[in-house]
């Protein structure tokens, strides 16, 4: 089975897309916030791979084309950012301070967790960059002596968590300002959270994209400093 699929240039793409459309359908029918199409699609794809005993690498042979689009798509986030230039200029102080507050909260919480669970240096720095975009996080984890593969898993789970829970958390803490909602999503859960912020509106999406960049760069510096503590 794996062999046939490995030679197919389309199988992985087709089951990924089909799983996503099923996910959108389920969300539309049931309307629950935690039923996120991305989450449903991931679970469905994993189920299909397990049931038909397909290797992940065979699936990736064609599904990899979807990931390939991620870099140019991230570059494109500059376009809504540019069209929101006025809002960006107007809120520049809030943007910088809020991203810094978010990054600091993330790093401090991980430090506390590590102390609480008695984690060693390697496990600690593996978790440190969990809120930033995958590629930055992997770089930090590797640089500081962590396990990049675990970092990748934690980062993706964090993104899904932010995407799924963002709406509820914002409502719970009465975060209603579109700028604040966008910044919160991008700082806490990078591009996967930004996908959700874009659903809310262009301003939210632009703020979230901006937060990915700012919090990513702040984390590069912040994580190196925090890494010295354990």
């Amino acid at each position, binding site marked *: 089975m794996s062999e046939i699929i490995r030679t197919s240039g389309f199988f992985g793409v087709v089951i990924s897309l089909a799983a996503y459309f099923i996910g959108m359908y389920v969300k539309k029918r049931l309307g629950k916030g935690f039923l996120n199409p*991305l989450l449903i699609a991931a679970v469905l794809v994993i189920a299909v791979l397990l049931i038909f005993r397909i290797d992940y690498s065979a*699936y990736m042979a064609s599904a990899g084309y979807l990931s390939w*689009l991620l*870099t140019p798509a991230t570059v494109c986030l*500059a376009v809504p950012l540019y069209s929101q230039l006025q809002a960006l200029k107007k*809120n520049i102080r809030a943007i910088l301070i809020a991203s810094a507050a978010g990054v600091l909260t993330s790093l401090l919480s991980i430090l506390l967790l590590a102390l609480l669970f008695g984690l060693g240096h390697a496990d600690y720095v593996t978790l440190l960059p969990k809120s930033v975009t995958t590629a*930055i996080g992997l*770089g930090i984890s590797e640089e500081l002596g962590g396990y990049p593969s675990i970092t990748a898993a934690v980062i993706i789970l964090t993104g899904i968590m932010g995407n799924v829970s963002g709406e509820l958390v914002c409502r719970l803490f009465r975060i209603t300002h579109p700028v604040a909602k966008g910044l*919160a999503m991008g700082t806490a859960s990078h591009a996967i959270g930004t996908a959700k912020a874009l659903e809310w509106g262009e301003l939210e999406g632009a703020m979230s994209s901006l*937060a990915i960049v700012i919090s990513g760069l702040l984390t590069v510096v912040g994580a190196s400093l925090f890494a010295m503590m354990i």
Partner: protein
Amino acid sequence: MRYLRQLCIILAITCAAELLHHFIPLPVPASIYGLVLMFCLLLAGVIKPAQVKETADLLIEIMPVMFIPAAAGLAESWSVLQPILVPALIAVLAVTVLVIAATGLTAQAFTGKEEKGDE
């Protein structure tokens, strides 16, 4: 042809970003250099929004789909995740909520003040 021309511009910037990533020794991915580069080119007026708009909108709209392969790959990382499962889960579940709240509330405090200042 318009979409193709727009795609060509976007991919050209992505290529330039890969070069930057290659030559600057920081753990910053090509995608982030590309985002900043595209933003600067738009600011400088070298690229007009109309020259990339439709294709950019399309790529952004279908972005969630691009995360499915990586998310499905989580089943593969299960064994490496297991030893630090509990702190990792707390980091994912609780810390993410904390960061959303901290960022959002801080931003809201400052945007509120600035708006009042404008009045």
